[in-house]
């Protein structure tokens, strides 16, 4: 549809050719705006109605006072907060140490599994056996075996601390998963990259180190961070070894009077810890989406 000249307006400053949307386009935009406002209004009203109704039903049900007393006791929450928080500090330290070790061990296992040539057969076999074993074993089982089993042997030179063996179990289990993530990344790098690296005279190891692995790590960053989000909460499993982390601290507080509010406090703290990490993962994944494709 042609735009009649009299509908063009002169912009301030004397630019006569500035584009103004045609009447048709303005009408379309007004319609889209009205639909957006309508959708937002419907969504808001229905959300308020549903949440309000659920809240009313929940707080007016016969058992609510007992639920509130046992799970959402404010005074109990305030009283147990310092103990649970200091326990969480242990979880954070465990998380940081384990994350570093898992990255190193996982990448090592992944690289082992990509080595070629008969000389490396034992390493390949070890890598495959390691991932099969620790992906198959329940984490709780590994924790109990290492945390209670090894110190009970009373062998000289081996640490006795439960935290050490808890971390060892987390590192072994998670490295198996992380190794598979890295391996998928390494295999996703197009063979032409390897050909280009080798044609320049780089050795297999140099090709991996300077060309393949840097690209692989970039690609698997989102799933890798996802595994670390999972590690954040699984660090709480070391509580079964008697280590006083956030969960164990909450358990001790709960045992005094069978009020479960400290567990809720610990849960809220864990969620507060993982949400930023999860958002960061989303952000990284989105950024990869922009630049990750079509490069090779």
């Amino acid at each position, binding site marked *: 549809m042609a735009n009649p000249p009299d509908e063009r307006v002169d912009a301030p400053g004397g630019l006569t050719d500035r584009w103004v949307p045609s009447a048709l386009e303005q009408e379309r935009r007004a319609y889209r705006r009205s639909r957006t406002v309508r959708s937002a209004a419907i969504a808001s009203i229905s959300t308020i109605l549903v949440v309000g109704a659920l809240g009313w039903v929940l707080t007016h049900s016969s058992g609510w006072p007992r639920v509130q007393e046992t799970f959402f006791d404010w005074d109990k929450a305030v009283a147990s907060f310092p103990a649970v928080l200091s326990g969480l500090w242990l979880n954070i330290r465990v998380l940081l140490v384990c994350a570093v070790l898992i990255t190193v061990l996982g990448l090592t296992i992944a690289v082992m599994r990509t080595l070629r040539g008969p000389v490396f057969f034992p390493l390949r076999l070890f890598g495959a056996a390691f991932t099969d074993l620790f992906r198959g074993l329940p984490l709780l089982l590994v924790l109990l075996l290492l945390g209670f089993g090894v110190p009970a042997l009373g062998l000289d030179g081996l640490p006795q601390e439960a935290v050490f063996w808890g971390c060892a179990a987390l590192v072994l289990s998670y490295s198996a998963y992380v190794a598979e993530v890295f391996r998928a990344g390494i295999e996703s790098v197009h063979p*032409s*990259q390897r*050909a*280009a*690296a*080798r*044609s*320049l*005279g*780089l*050795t297999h190891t*140099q090709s991996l180190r*300077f*060309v393949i692995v*840097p*690209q692989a790590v*970039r690609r698997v960053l989102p799933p890798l961070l996802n595994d670390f989000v999972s590690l954040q909460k699984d660090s709480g499993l070391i509580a079964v070894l008697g280590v006083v982390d956030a969960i164990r601290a909450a358990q001790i507080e709960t045992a005094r009077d069978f009020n479960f509010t400290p567990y809720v406090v610990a849960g809220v703290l864990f969620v507060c810890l993982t949400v930023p990490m999860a958002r960061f993962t989303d952000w990284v994944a989105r950024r990869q989406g922009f*630049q990750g494709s*079509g*490069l*090779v």
Partner: protein
Amino acid sequence: MSLLSVRGLRKSFGSNVVLDGFDLEVSAGECVVLIGASGSGKSTLLRCVNLLETVDDGVIHLGSEDITDPRVDPDRVRSRMGMVFQAYNLFPHLSVLDNITLAPMRVHGRPRADATAAARAILERVGLADKASVRPDELSGGQQQRVAIARALVNSPELMLLDEVTSALDPELVGEVLDLLISLKAEGMTMVLATHEMAFAKQVADRVCFLHGGAIHEEGPPAALLGAPSRERTRAFLSRFVGL
């Protein structure tokens, strides 16, 4: 004596025999252009020479060295040649400069300052001095291919292998790369290039080889082979190119 000598080369993939008793001699400073239908073995030959494929039979000599001998170190042999690929195969996580300095530093053990100076000089030569710090995906296809050629050239190779280096480029960008190859030839670089671009064959080739049936079906100077091919299969192939 030939710089590159291929004798009785055989290479198959499964039941598909791509090269079957292939012979080729390339003297120092010569530019040999390989033409032929897709699947005729142009790329396979270049990949065999670069030791990216293991040959089934036959011998390849680079200078006086038998490079098909399993006792030779393939990394050292490859570092004597420069290979350029159809899809550029630049390293997307490295800047243009780092793409070029990787091999001089890691393979040839040159110090960073030395490698950087050499890389900047070679970028100047391919007309991309201002692009040293950008990532490959910010460049046009022609620019990327010139970077790939620079990356191969910086190691002062004895032989350049170019595998359909312009197949992914539009005619204007083909011109950029062609100009670069013409100047390389003028400097006496030995080149073997596989192409579907007959302008390359006309303008840079000393000799054009038409590959068919796993061997060189017909060869000769560009004017003779492209202008008046003597064999039926060569004529049929070349008749498909407009404007020859």
